[in-house]
């Protein structure tokens, strides 16, 4: 699936991807509490020619990093009308949001963006979620199974309306053809009977099955399905449209061992500035808080351009995780992306194109439609 062009995504949450970023740039952390921060970040990403942005999130505060954060889907929706080419990919954790609501929210985001929505599937334990949600929250192997089930039912809900379900037939007075709407009748895996009303009292560590009737309350969206992004190893093969793979500093341009999906390399980035070298900046950040994600790329804008050129044909794209958003993002936009555009190493998304169009992903066939894809 990789081509001779490289898609560039940018993570835009808060003050930056490094857990100490908010201490380096408290103004950005404060801007992130209202609409100004996210609006400025996506404008920079879109104007710089990025294909998509991701928006990190967690129901509960992370162990390190700032204590404040707005819901990622709500933030993505807020910047939908002020962007026109950029894919908007909020993180939503499959174990902490009702699957039915999750399908509605991301389906709604796809409508509000005219087909530029993605879903970054949250992974790993969410500390404190069990007590916050007043029910068991899957962890470990159960979480992997739960994630697979949630993706499956969410995709089914996205298909529960065929594209042409709204017929507005004045002759018969029918707004919809109800035969083009479908119950999903999904039952997840798990142990024992469906918990239902007893869910609150299911012991921790037991994964009780859940069921979803359907259809969705939101009609099928412009892309059919929002583009599903997931980190390698957190979902079964084939469940995601885009698999995020980790950066290996020893073999930076090695092809990932992923089949059947577009691949995007997760690349933490710390760049040289006139005031300090990237290595100094990185050391300062790590001195304030340790980052479990690994250093990623630490160096000059020119070296980053060379690395990205070398990744063409190796991966579908990269996701740049700027250590400090308003230090690294402006350099990426001013010094890195233009150099890649000049020799057509990165695509320029067209206004009005869907994220699937831009990424070269097909529009999914409808699970329920008799004739398969309706396009």
């Amino acid at each position, binding site marked *: 699936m990789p081509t001779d062009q490289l898609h560039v995504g940018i993570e835009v949450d808060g003050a930056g991807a490094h857990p100490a970023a908010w201490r380096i740039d408290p103004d950005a952390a404060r801007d992130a509490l209202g609409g100004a921060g996210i609006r400025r970040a996506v404008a920079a990403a879109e104007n710089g020619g990025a294909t998509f942005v991701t928006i990190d999130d967690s129901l509960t505060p992370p162990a390190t990093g700032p*204590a404040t954060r*707005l819901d990622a889907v709500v933030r993505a929706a807020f910047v939908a009308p002020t962007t026109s080419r950029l894919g908007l990919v909020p993180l939503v954790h499959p174990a902490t949001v009702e699957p039915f609501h999750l399908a509605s929210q991301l389906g709604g985001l796809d409508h*509000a963006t005219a087909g530029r929505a993605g879903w970054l599937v949250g992974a790993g334990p969410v500390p404190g979620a069990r007590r916050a949600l007043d029910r068991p929250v899957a962890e470990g192997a159960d979480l992997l199974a739960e994630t697979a089930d949630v993706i499956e039912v969410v995709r089914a809900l996205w298909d529960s309306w065929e594209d042409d379900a709204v017929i507005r037939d004045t002759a018969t007075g029918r707004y919809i053809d109800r035969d083009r*709407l479908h119950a999903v009748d999904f039952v997840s895996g798990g142990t024992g009977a469906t918990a239902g009303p007893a869910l609150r009292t299911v012991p921790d560590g037991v994964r009780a099955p859940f069921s979803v009737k359907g259809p969705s309350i939101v009609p099928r969206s412009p892309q059919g399905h929002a583009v599903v992004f997931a980190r390698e190893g957190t979902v079964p093969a084939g469940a995601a449209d885009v698999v995020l793979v980790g950066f290996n500093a020893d073999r930076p341009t090695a092809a990932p061992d992923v089949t059947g999906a577009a691949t995007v390399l997760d690349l933490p980035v710390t760049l040289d500035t006139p005031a300090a070298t990237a290595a100094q900046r990185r050391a300062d950040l790590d001195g304030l808080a340790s980052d479990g994600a690994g250093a990623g790329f630490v160096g000059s804008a020119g070296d980053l351009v060379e690395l990205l050129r070398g990744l063409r044909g190796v991966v579908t794209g990269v996701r740049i995780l700027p250590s400090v958003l308003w230090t690294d993002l402006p350099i990426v936009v001013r010094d890195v992306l233009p150099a890649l555009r000049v020799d057509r190493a990165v695509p320029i998304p067209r206004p009005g194109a869907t994220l699937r169009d831009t990424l070269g992903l097909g529009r999914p066939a409808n699970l329920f439609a008799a004739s398969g894809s309706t396009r």
Partner: protein
Amino acid sequence: MTDRQYDFPRPDAQVHFGVFFQGVNHHTIWSDPASGSQLDFETFRQVIQTAERGLFDAFFLGEGLRLRESHGRIHDLDVVGRPDAITQLAALAAVTSRIGLVATQNVTYNDPADLARRLASLDALSGGRAAWNIVTTDNAWTGANFRRGGWLDHEQRYERAAEFVQTAQAVWDGGPQGPADRPEAVRVSGSTLDVSVVPTTPRSPQQHPVLFQAGDSPAGRDFAARYAEVIFSAHGSDLDDALAFAQDIRTRTIAAGRPADDLKILPGTGFVIGDTPKEAEEKARWVKEQQVTPATALSLLGQVWGEDLSTYDPDGPLPAHDPVIDTIGETRGSPRRRQAAGDIARQWRARAEAEHLSIRQLVIAEDRSRGFVGTPAAVAERLIEFVRSGATDGCNISPWIVPSGLDDIVDKVVPELQSRGAYRTEYTGTTLREHLGLRPPVTRRDAGEPAAAVVAR
């Protein structure tokens, strides 16, 4: 109406408008060529920007968590399929600057920690314009879409609502003051929940999102009197009925320990405006006929009879037999739900016989006309009478067509109200709470900060 003007108990009261977009009932006309997409963002953008041009307090989205059914099949005659409310309002926040954004959200099938956070996020991004229309559901039919299923007893629905609201308020009050502030967990425990969560969303510019509520049962009214700040009532067309409702609500509000005017009353209302009284009446008749199509007439009849009557002749007589059900069901969201079907059927048959009405004529005649019909000046006078007599604080307008349905109100009725000194000529505040003239929320009114741990009352 002028003879009452001098003894208005609230001679300076102002009319407040909200817009309710979009009922999934037959009142929304989708068949007309002027009816736009019910889903495209552009339709929503046009309606909300028209409302903001008209200096409305709020834009209001409905939400139901399962598609309505008739006789076990998805109901296919009315508008159905809406965007997710909070998601859509967040997008609309970006194309507006003052108007309030009201999301209908269910307390039975949401998690308080998650919903409080999403509402607070909308509030933060919109600069203090968010509101929550609190709805309860108990039926297992809706629960089939959710992990817990039909878990809540009917009698417990307002207990759940109270505990949920207290949890949300605790989350909003306990939010961090800034990125460096790491608050303690707030904990609320009660009979329907036991939640402990560290809030991540900042304190709201309007302290809390504004709370709307629409329940009309005695328990629903008591809940509103205790917690709500705006009541979205069904009592807005008949003045005596509206006054009686307002009096009842004020009595309950005072009994709950709040000033009577803590709770604003905005009934859901439709408007038909004409340049002459005759034109308005003719347009109102046309609207009714568009709303009650032959198929819709048979469907509404079948809802009372409890069976599929779609093969009947809509221009013929009512069924001679009695309904097959005792009470009207839940799955259509009918205003008559839980009422005795036999009583309604007898009334309808008696009226049809006395007035020689066909099925469709009878259904049109019985269709509750919620709203105002007339010239801009006459409608403005009537609205002022409602508001200044203390019956309402304005209304939540349900346009019968979108996106153009607010144009006459904004372009014609609002200026008539303004020229009578009964409607704002500019926004004087930035938050929804300021537009509505609301005090700080009850839980924030004491000098002290609330305790981190709350036992739901």
